[in-house]
């Protein structure tokens, strides 16, 4: 029987100087690299494949399979790009990981790069997290000095360089093809697929793009074996993962558990919804994953469980909102986010989110016209699935799911401002002046 919480990635976060090479090595760090470099690249890929590790950045695509898509006969250089652009509302797992244990990522990058025959790897970190850059820059410098990076790593004959790269404020760059354009020094706008990055990615060369947590999970898999990893989690959602609880919970934070734990179990550990309140709605994996309610408390938080509930596991960013919260206000804020972050490439997303924000502001102010709920759904249906990338789908998902679960609250917006139905001060953690919404 596996324990309820299984800290692996977060096991060393509380150690003094956890971010330093010596501390990481003292706890067994970089042993997996030594092991991997004695195997063939194909054997390394097989271990990751056999482990069942699936992408932790939201899509859940099998990581080892992604690696195996890199064509062996393509003469171009191969690239590994780690997506550390963590910006999905609610998502806050990769930044603490990189702050506390950047070497876990460096070690994972060495193993992954070796597996796909890559000699230049990049980590693309969102710009707005200064200290994460400091820790990552230092970790890479330390790894060079210790011979884990550079030429002839650990005498294996294998060479690897890692470049730490700063983004500049654009949620869209978390989308893998937009990230590639950004990394090529362009506006971050998504590319049409195919060709997929595995065939023509960075500089039109074969490229693997993985989330921080996915790559950081690799050293533990190499060290302990695929079977060990698979002994945690469920049949199709294997291993441990980071769940991030935020919002109206007694104790928000990071919980590393086998896939398949439920929100009820996590809430128990977090001390429940904040005292005197009850759960109203929540996101399983960021604002782009359709919201759920208290009736979904016992659905396993794994890829299949969430798909079965009509949503997605996403980034496992569990944002908890209690009964004081206006779902109209929350939906408006999320939609404003998508409007702000739409890259402008596709008309449905660029214009549609603009329209939805205007409509939702009227709902919030109690000035929507009778029938506007259906009009909003109609606008949404002209955005989702009609754009290059998933930003548009995420933008629509938060609106449609909110209406699905709380239609009457939107209909109240025909006559009553949200701040009258749900005085905003009650949702805050501290006493706030009575407000009528930031835009009124």
């Amino acid at each position, binding site marked *: 029987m596996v324990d309820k919480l299984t800290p692996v990635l977060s096991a060393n976060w509380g*150690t003094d100087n956890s971010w330093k090479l010596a501390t990481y090595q003292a706890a067994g760090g970089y042993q997996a690299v030594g092991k991997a470099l004695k195997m063939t690249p194909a054997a390394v890929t097989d271990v990751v494949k056999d482990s069942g590790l699936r992408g932790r950045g939201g899509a859940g695509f099998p990581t080892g399979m992604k690696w195996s898509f890199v064509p062996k006969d393509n003469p171009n250089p191969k690239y590994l790009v780690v997506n550390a652009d963590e910006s999905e509302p609610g*998502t806050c797992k990769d930044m603490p990981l990189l702050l506390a244990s950047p070497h876990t990522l460096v070690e994972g990058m060495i193993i992954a790069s070796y597996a796909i025959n890559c000699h230049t790897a990049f980590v693309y970190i969102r*710009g707005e997290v200064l200290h994460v850059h400091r820790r990552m820059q230092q970790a890479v410098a330390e790894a060079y000095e210790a011979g884990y990076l550079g030429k002839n790593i650990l005498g294996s004959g294998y060479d690897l360089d890692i470049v730490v*790269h*700063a983004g500049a404020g654009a949620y869209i760059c978390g989308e893998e093809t937009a990230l590639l354009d950004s990394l090529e020094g362009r506006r971050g706008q998504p590319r049409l697929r195919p060709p997929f990055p595995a065939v023509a990615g960075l500089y039109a060369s074969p490229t693997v793009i993985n989330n921080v947590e996915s790559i950081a999970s690799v050293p533990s898999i190499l060290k302990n074996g695929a079977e*060990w990893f698979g002994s945690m989690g469920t049949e199709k959602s294997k291993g441990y993962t980071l769940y991030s609880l935020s919002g109206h919970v007694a104790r928000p934070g990071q919980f590393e558990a086998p896939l398949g734990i439920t929100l009820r179990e996590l809430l128990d550990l977090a001390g429940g919804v904040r005292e005197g309140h009850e759960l109203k709605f929540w996101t399983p994996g960021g604002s782009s994953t359709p919201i759920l309610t208290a009736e979904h408390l016992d659905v396993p938080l794994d890829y299949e469980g969430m798909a079965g509930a009509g949503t997605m596991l996403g980034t496992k960013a569990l944002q908890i909102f209690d009964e004081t919260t206006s779902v109209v206000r929350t939906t408006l804020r999320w939609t404003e986010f998508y409007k702000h972050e739409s890259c402008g490439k596709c008309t449905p997303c660029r214009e549609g989110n603009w329209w939805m924000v205007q409509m939702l502001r009227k709902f919030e102010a109690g000035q929507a016209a009778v029938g506007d709920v259906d009009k909003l759904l109609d606008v949404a249906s002209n955005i989702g699935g009609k754009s290059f990338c998933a930003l548009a789908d995420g933008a629509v998902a938060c609106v449609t799911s909110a209406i699905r679960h709380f239609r009457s609250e939107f209909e109240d917006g025909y006559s009553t401002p949200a701040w009258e139905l749900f005085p905003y001060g009650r949702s805050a953690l501290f006493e706030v002046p009575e407000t009528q919404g*930031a835009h009124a």
Partner: protein
Amino acid sequence: MSGHEFQSFFPESGTVDMTDTTTNIDDTTFAELRQLASRYPEARSALLPMLHLVQSVDGRISPVGIEACAEVLGITAAQVSGVATFYTMYRRRPGGKHHIGVCTTALCAVMGGDALLEQVSEKLGIQPDETTPDGKFSLERLECNAACDFAPVMMVNWEFMDNMTPDKAQQLIDDLAADAEVKSTRGATITSWRAAERVLAGFPDGRADEGPSAGEASLLGKSIADEKGWAAPKGGKS
């Protein structure tokens, strides 16, 4: 809602301020821009870091900075401007010594972020996207900054200011205004926005060892597991 009230309107659109031609860019800056370009298999990949460097030197994306990037990379000034105007971290007007961000994406907004923004805006006497006349502060309403378990969140020069309250926000601004020492809750001692931009450009400031390994919320699951004696299974062999 009917008729033609909807129209495309992007108030944040616009170009770099070409009327302000002042600059601090010199040969050293050019050497550093070239150094950044040399770090990548294809030089243009360095453009985002190069623009961060321009900001650290000139306090904004300056016309001379745009020309400098274009010259080093062998691309046009229009191509550089196109990139500089796409990303929100690049400033087209001079920012403050300290750049204050208040997160008002849904979760932080609901938890008190809206009130914090209003309070800070009132205290500084400026609206978001503005800079105080003395050049000390600029203000931004932030989109999610990946610290939701520490909500409501503020940022100073892109350093985390976790679990903010009105009292803490008041103290923070007072301390920064008085040039008193301010430490990030999960980062280093606050210096300046321009110093931060230099690190983001890829020139370390040697302060990685400041601050804690993690915040309390980051360690919550691990500390509960320790209390209960829970752990991942013992490793086997591959």
